């Protein structure tokens, strides 16, 4: 038997299934919260911090990631305050400055309203969202990939750096990776990275984006949970 709790997201009264996350509930009800490391069916680790929301507790707004926050009776959530938009934009800016050579990341940047990048570009090919690590461990029970190192040295690798025989070569890690598709104009060379913004046409209103999901094409870019679930 599913139990329901009553929560409020952006003023909308929602009957949510106990045990689900705020992000899942919001997406289910068509409230758009940008996200990257979240993938339907995998556990949430709260790494990308794009899905931050304000959780109002005793009148105080606490910023927290919505993927790791489970719904509870009487919970009040705001997903689109000016502060949240600004913080989210800053995180997306950090991401796109680090890995501009990915359509997904460029789409996330547009979706979060990044207009300029204030840092010099790096051309990394991983943002450590951990989708590959989790899908390998949780869906295929293979654990052929894992995080290695700490802090700035953290990266994804096979155990001891060699492809193990328990890797099933299923390629799900590649399918699920947000970094595999380059921006539409083609790959960017090191030193020539730029903020793409080409998709802005699809979301003219990036600043005054509706709280409701409009099934935007950007979602396809970063494998938005709603698009994935709809099949």
């Amino acid at each position, binding site marked *: 038997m599913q139990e329901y709790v009553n929560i409020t997201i952006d003023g909308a009264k929602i009957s949510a299934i106990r045990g689900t996350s705020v992000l899942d509930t919001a997406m289910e009800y068509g409230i758009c919260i940008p996200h990257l490391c979240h993938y339907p069916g995998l556990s949430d*680790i*709260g*790494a*990308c*911090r*794009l899905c*931050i929301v304000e959780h109002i507790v005793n009148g105080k707004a606490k*910023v*927290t*990631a919505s993927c*790791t*926050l*489970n719904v509870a009776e009487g919970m009040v959530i705001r997903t689109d305050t000016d*502060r949240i938009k600004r*913080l989210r934009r*800053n*995180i997306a800016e*950090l*991401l796109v*400055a*680090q890995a501009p050579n990915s359509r997904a990341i460029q789409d996330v940047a547009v979706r979060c309203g990044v207009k300029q990048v*204030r*840092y*010099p570009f790096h051309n990394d090919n991983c*943002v*450590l969202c951990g989708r590959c690590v989790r899908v390998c461990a949780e869906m295929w029970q293979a654990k052929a990939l894992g*995080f290695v*190192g*700490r*802090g*700035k*040295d*953290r990266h994804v690798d096979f155990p001891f750096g060699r492809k193990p025989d328990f890797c099933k070569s299923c390629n799900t890690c590649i399918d699920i990776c947000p970094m595999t598709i380059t921006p539409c104009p083609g790959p960017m060379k090191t030193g020539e990275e730029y903020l793409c913004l080409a998709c802005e046409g699809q979301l003219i209103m990036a600043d005054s984006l509706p709280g409701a999901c409009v099934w935007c094409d950007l979602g396809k870019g970063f494998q938005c949970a709603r698009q994935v679930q709809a099949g």
Partner: protein
Amino acid sequence: MPKLKTLKDLTKFRESLAAQKEDVDCMVTISGGTCGNASGSLKVVEAMQSELASNGFAGRVHVRVTGCQGFCEQEPIVTIDPANIFYCRVSPDDVPEIVSETIRKNQVIERLLYTDPATGEKITKETDIPFYRAQDRVLLGLNRKIDPCNIEDYIAVGGYSALAKVLSGVTAEQVIQEIKSSGLRGRGGGGYPTGQKWQQCREAAGDEKYVICNADEGDPGAYMDRSVLEGNPHAILEGMLIGSYAVGANKGYIYVRNEYPLAVSNARKAIEQAKLFGFLGDDILGRHFFDIEIMRGAGAFVCGESTALMASLEGKVGEPRPKDVHTVQEGLWNKPTCLNNVETWANVPLIINKGAAWFASKGTKGSKGTKIFALTGRVKNTGLVEVAMGTSLRTIIHSIGGGPNDGVAIKAVQTGGPSGGCLPAEKFDLPVDFETLAEAGSMVGSGGMVVMDERTCMVDVAKYFIAFLQDESCGKCVPCRLGLGRMLEILTDITEGRGKPEQLDLLEDLGETMTHTCLCALGKTAANPVLSTLRYFRQEYESHIQDKYCSAGVCRELIQYSIDPNNCTGCGACLKACPNKAITGESEKPHRINQDLCSRCGICKDVCKFEAISIC
């Protein structure tokens, strides 16, 4: 030793210890903590023991090796009771004189006495030393009376009587109420009310619960947890025993970093002895069962964060997890877990013994009791300082610390380690308590206090802490991993003369983003060093950017060494010392520095005896 089974046994045993003590004429206390060891106190102990034995004092004079007593820079310290004579910086060669003069004839040896750097006066008695006099050494004071490897010493000063009191008819709810009304707050940095945490853990569903002592102290410049665990391990065991009784746990862990070998070994010995005496195990004074295990950390700073610590304890990678469900509900192995800092646990027996009202009488409205601070940096007296909460920074730095070293004005104090901030000298009248420091943009944190004077560049300090945190971040969440990297990039630009004015606003914006969005407390507080220095020392950042000028003369890219031809005698000392061969000149004629070759290491300035080399 038979197990002590009842309260009566314990009292009787304590009385017999007191009777033994009366047989001893003289007590020689030598501190042998990590600081003492490093300064050679173990050799002093050996020399003292053999000297006493050969002079026929064995049995009449007792030598006690204690943990750190707080005045680390004066180690090895030898105190002789009952006269309360305090000798500092004692070497093994001084020992025969101490035995023949002080112990035999009760004569004071002038040259071994402590000299007050403020007045130049020699001070005989330990209690008259200004460093100690202004303190309220409730917890640290015990270190002097206890040999950490000897449970009898701890029992003699009233040890385990709080446990006995609790187990002789006090309910768990009453214990929690007592802790609550004492106003004790977590000493590890967060300042969460301890009683409240215990109550939540007690009320959490589940039969199996855990208590943990967090001794993974990693802040640069902070070492009070080490000193307490090293010098008084039984106080922590007793605190954890009381806590476990209150929350309903039967298993405890001490998570201590492996870089504290003496703390690990002393805590191990303490656990063994406590088991022998029946304070740990299946039948504790007939009322409770509890066991403690020691786990050693593997060197990650982030494992001091509670959820990362628990992951590490479980054998997983030490990474924090989101705290939307608190550890008092789902902590170690998803069971309710009560985690407290070393100092918090050590305060518990004192509160139970002396009462909540006694504890609450010290401190301010919101922060009760005393707190140990590690005072380091550019002050005359460095060491561990225990004062009541609410004592002003000025008292700590000027009265206890003795004020500036070498006559250079003090500019700022960095409190709370890398998560804390820098407060300028104008703010030194602020009382040190959780709320006030947080409002001022810093924090009490675990209690590190690094004093900085005009020779310190605040941009460089911020850069140091950000580099430290970048190394120590787990790298899991984006704002912490990438944000710290970008911060370091910008700070490096500024210190190397490539800074732009708009980068200051970017630093603030980025800092605020990290403060709100990071996953764990390490990330949420990581921007504090930058935000606080920007708040109070913005003009230093601006002069780095606009004038390419570092007033402290620290940032190498912005300074030049030059030789004043009027002062230079041409002695050639700098010429020989320069590793880059950047100095040229004939003997007895003024030398010159070739700026292209100079790496700005500053060795020439250090070796010059004529003050001819200056930074501009």
